[in-house]
């Protein structure tokens, strides 16, 4: 069994804002195998963006990784010095961000920025003409029309969809083992989204790049990913192959998410929602993080946090699937009232 391209173990991270500290990640484990596309899904604030940023140690100011181990391409990321870290960013693992409109430097041409990404990692002095050819080639590869002209353009002269392609082109040029895509299509419309997703798939198929695809959209995840991880309140609550997860969701939160996704149904059907709100990050309640909103919660759920157990072909963090837990012995409903 080849070693995973990405191996995260027990990752914990906090943010310090003003005087308060918020725990954003509570012991997250995640692996991505070579050539695998793994989706990370959750609602806003669940920690998926923090997770993505943490891999290359790109947390925003105030953010800190407090515990855990991250291995990218067999390198222990948290132990590297600045220069080693710099060398991994790009060729080892590359990251593209959510908002294509602000991901490119407005003061320089697209071609220059792409070239810069390359030359920052070239061990030999590649000639400028070679570099330019590579850049134009990459732009062509991601489907940008008139790539020579595009290379001379400034970012604001390109559309959002084109700019996101440019980011993918940057990743293409560096041939990373892993691409971390943090909600790359959230700012784009549906047609553009489909194109970007197809591009990402091609990236994996033709270049063998593994992808960590972070999103809040179950639909795009279903289209693109091999495996899916569901996150809630800074924890992994379920993980499974994409087909199994959508067919037989194990965790109550996953079930609720899938139920809440709007689909074409009969007119007049009410849109299902998940009652309640995600827990406070500064003062998390004891026990299962989802219990206050869970229809199937029992008193024992509030006692202690459940661990990940095998469920429905994958894993889930829920006492329902743990045959040994006290959940199955008591039948008392949770004392807390589930808000309607």
């Amino acid at each position, binding site marked *: 069994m080849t070693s995973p391209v990405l191996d995260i173990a027990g990752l914990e991270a906090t943010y310090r804002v003003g005087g308060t500290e918020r725990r954003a990640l509570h012991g997250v484990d995640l692996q991505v195998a070579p050539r695998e596309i793994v989706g990370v899904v959750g609602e806003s604030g669940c920690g998926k963006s923090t997770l993505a940023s943490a891999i290359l140690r790109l947390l925003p100011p105030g953010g800190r990784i407090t515990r855990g181990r991250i291995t990218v391409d067999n390198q222990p990321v948290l132990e590297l010095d600045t220069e080693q870290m710099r060398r991994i960013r790009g060729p080892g693992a590359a990251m593209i961000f959510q908002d294509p409109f602000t991901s490119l430097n407005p*003061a320089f041409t697209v071609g220059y*920025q792409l070239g810069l990404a390359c030359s*920052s990692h070239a061990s030999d002095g590649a000639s400028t003409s070679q570099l330019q050819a590579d850049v134009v080639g990459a732009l062509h590869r991601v489907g940008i029309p008139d790539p020579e002209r595009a290379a001379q353009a400034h970012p*604001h002269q390109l559309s959002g969809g084109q700019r996101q392609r440019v980011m993918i082109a940057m990743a293409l040029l560096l041939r990373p083992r892993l691409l971390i895509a943090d909600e790359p299509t959230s700012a784009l419309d549906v047609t553009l989204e489909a194109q970007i997703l197809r591009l990402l798939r091609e990236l994996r198929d033709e270049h063998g790049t593994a992808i960590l695809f972070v999103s809040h959209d179950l639909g795009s995840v279903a289209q693109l990913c091999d495996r899916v991880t569901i996150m809630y309140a800074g924890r992994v609550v379920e993980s499974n192959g994409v087909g199994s997860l959508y067919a037989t969701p194990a965790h109550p939160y996953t079930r609720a998410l899938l139920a809440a996704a709007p689909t074409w149904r009969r007119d007049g059907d009410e849109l299902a929602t998940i009652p309640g709100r995600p827990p406070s990050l500064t003062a998390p309640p004891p026990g299962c993080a989802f219990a206050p909103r869970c229809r199937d919660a029992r008193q024992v759920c509030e006692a202690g946090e459940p661990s990940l157990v095998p469920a429905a072909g994958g894993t889930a963090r829920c006492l329902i699937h743990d045959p040994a837990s006290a959940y199955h012995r008591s039948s008392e409903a949770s004392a807390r009232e589930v808000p309607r």
Partner: protein
Amino acid sequence: MMAYALRRLAMTAMVVLVLLTLLAALVHVLPGDPVTLMLGPQASGDLSRLARTEMDLDSPVHLQVWHFIAGAAQGDLGRDFLTRVPVASLIAQALPHTLILAVSSLVLAVAVAIPLGVVSAARPGSLLDRAVGTVSVGVISIPSYVVGLSLLLVFAVWLGWLPALGAGALRSPIDYVAHLLLPMCALALIWAGYLARIVRASMLEVLDSNYIRAARAFGVHDRRILYQLSLRNAIVPVVALLGVALGDLMGSAIFVEVIFTRNGLGTLLYNAIAERNFPVVRGAVVVIAVLFVVANLAADLANRLLDPRVRADQAG
């Protein structure tokens, strides 16, 4: 671009107009009489009348302004009432020295401020950052003449390293530079402090942006990120300020020129004021005002040129 430049030109012309009117209006409104101050209370009635007519003091405010502008358009800024020398030529002699002082001070200020601001932003909260921060606040608040006098005291009077008087002859560059050094440093110090803070603030904002984060995510060298990718964006608001800086330097330049006994526009103004030489005062102030608004305009236009979004919008 053209349309914008013309619009700004019109705005600045209006600013000069406002200033001229304000000046004339204030003379009317506030107590005191320029002619009496200039010639003394014992002056004969004829002389007083002559002075009033020549200085156009009896015309209503708007006509005063109009006459002055009409004359200025033809290069006539009035005459020194006592020596009959045209004000324009007095100014032409003094102006180069002031411009050299102002420009060289600005260049020095910028050359010092940018590295300081960048390094402070790269390591916010560090000892260096806090030191630069405190010193720059200090330097900004202390009056320019205090800075000038202190430099004079230490380097010219006490240590004797540099000359204290005069501008030196332009013919001998080394001598001129020696005379330029202290006044230039006095002016530059204050603006270096202020510009460093602006650069730092601007850099911090840019360093926080998504595109810098993306550059880091693709492994671009730190030095390049700071000095090329970030600075290029951070410098844009600073350029706009350079115009303001140049204008303000003119104000402080008066003190510095007097302290170091440099002949320039400031000393000309100062002496004219001491003599109550109204035509020279008016001419000098107007020239300073025009220089000032032109500098602002130039900085504003340069700013637009630098901002790639605006520039490319015009190009389509």
